[in-house]
């Protein structure tokens, strides 16, 4: 079953169109990266999915309309949004008590175990904790909820690299072996690349590109070009060219009628592009591409 199903999702703020007809289908058990520049509509889309804002169009999350049934949906959906939103006045034990009190799928022992690994004291107020500790606390609360869908909106914003790594490690170790769906919105693409199963690029309120990570590997290549082969490579119509110091790389879409992997490897070193490079290739200044699966 589809965990999230959106058709013609639209949201405007005055004259500003934040979501311009988004079609999105997220299957159960996938880990989807919603990737886009600032102001692309990532947060707006997630807010609609979480029942935090109204929308036009059709949207079902776990079979429910999030705007009508936000409270019931939250029995099965967890989210962490961009900044620390745990109230600053609350004490750690109060936060645990409260979530345990109102959430039917909260495993208190699990949250306690997670917190025991940190230096967070149960009696501290959130305002006394460092930013990393607040995130750990939030993570402990959310990870202890047996949710079907986890939504993360820039979850590591403002954290240092150590915490960011820790964050995704615990996310992965905890979630990888279950039938659970995760949607992560971020513009720090590189650090989540190896976590994801699917990619969705969002740009100016539209889905600009979507594919699975397997498709990414089989359909897109980055070619590190020997300088003498530049013009030969250009003739093969790369979707994007990236000139670096001393070497340049081009990105190709492997589709029928396009050059094959073998042809390209004669011109240089062939490898799978990073998500960040692909993102620039698709949304950057290069020629626009219309690969399969693009929702336009």
């Amino acid at each position: 079953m589809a965990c999230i199903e959106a058709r013609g999702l639209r949201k405007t703020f005055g004259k500003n169109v934040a979501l311009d007809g988004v079609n999105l289908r997220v299957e159960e058990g996938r880990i989807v990266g919603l990737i886009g520049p600032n102001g692309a509509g990532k947060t707006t889309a997630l807010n609609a999915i979480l029942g935090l804002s109204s929308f036009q169009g059709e949207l079902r999350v776990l079979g429910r309309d999030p705007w009508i049934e936000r409270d019931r949906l939250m029995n099965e959906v967890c989210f962490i949004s961009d900044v620390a939103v745990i109230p600053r006045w609350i004490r750690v034990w109060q936060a645990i008590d409260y979530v345990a009190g109102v959430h039917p799928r909260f495993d208190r022992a699990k949250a306690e175990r997670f917190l025991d690994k940190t230096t967070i004291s149960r009696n501290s107020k959130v305002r006394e904790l460092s930013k990393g500790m607040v995130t750990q606390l939030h993570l402990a609360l959310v990870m202890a909820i047996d949710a079907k869908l986890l939504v993360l909106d820039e979850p590591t914003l403002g954290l240092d690299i150590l915490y960011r790594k820790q964050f995704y490690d615990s996310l992965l170790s905890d979630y990888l072996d279950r039938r659970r769906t995760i949607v992560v919105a971020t513009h720090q693409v590189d650090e989540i690349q190896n976590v994801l199963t699917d990619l969705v690029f969002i740009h100016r309120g539209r889905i600009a590109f979507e594919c699975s990570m397997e498709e990414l590997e089989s359909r897109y290549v980055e070619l590190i070009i020997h300088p003498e082969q530049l013009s030969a490579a250009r003739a093969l119509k790369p979707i994007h060219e990236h000139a670096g110091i001393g070497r340049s790389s081009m990105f190709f879409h492997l589709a029928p009628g396009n050059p094959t992997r073998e042809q390209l490897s004669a011109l240089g070193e062939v490898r799978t592009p990073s998500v960040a490079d692909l993102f620039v290739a698709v949304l950057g200044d290069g020629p626009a591409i219309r690969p399969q699966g693009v929702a336009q």
Partner: protein
Amino acid sequence: MNTQSNAVSASAETQASTVAEIPAERLFYWALRRELWESRSIYIAPLAAAGLFLLGFLISAYRLPAKMRDLSALDSMQKHQLIAQPYTYAALLIMFVTFVVAVIYCLDALHGERRDRSILFWKSLPVSDLIAVLTKASIPIVFLPLLTFVITAATHVFMLLLSALVLMASGGGTAELLSHAGLAQTWFMLLYHLLVVHGLWYAPIYGWLLLVSAWARRAPLLWAGLPLLVIPMFEKVAFNTAYLGNLLGERISGGGPMRTDVATGLDAMMASDNLLVRPGLWIGLAITAIFLIAAVRLRRSKGPI
């Protein structure tokens, strides 16, 4: 596509319906605890007022034996008034403090959580906006009147014990004190007054404050207060009438004309007439319901500020 998606929705719905849900009364309980964790002033302020009053009463106790001797010259009615007076003052002080606390609480209740963005945390949990708003409304309408009663009654008991001890120590009798303090009667009137006036009659005031708190981006006090001043003034200037002003005055004064002579005693203040049979009370409650429904809708659609 449609049939397929309908089938998908249907199977999702059956799956969704099997999820255990927390019963509403438990959600209320935790939502209430959460309010008390956050706004500790709603019980600390009246407790502090009661403590301060008791301290003052303790200091005044050295005059008590002399006062009781002077009283013997007066008639029974005057005795009763003089002995009951400090108990009335205690009740009025604590009532006034909790009313102020209720107003401040309401103005911040739905504004503060948007200001510090914690609304995103609360909304990530399966507690509906309806439960959240009703819990917040129940603090000034139900919880604070009951709390006021308990604190006042406890204060009265302390005062009575203290007086009795002082009188016994000075060799005087306590019979007159006990017979004239009339606490059982006072407490009954007090409880009625708190529940009917501070709870039900004032409910539209709290509803209005909560609504503004849910709506205003900033300065909820200003948005809540200014219309109440400006609109009656507009009515006076435009039509030379004072319906709205009178209506508001009657609401805030607790059903009667504004009183300035607070010293007339609780009995007089509360026995004015039975508010429960006044249509104004029930119209006020209907208006409260409208305000609260609007606040629920606003809480759903308004994000952090």
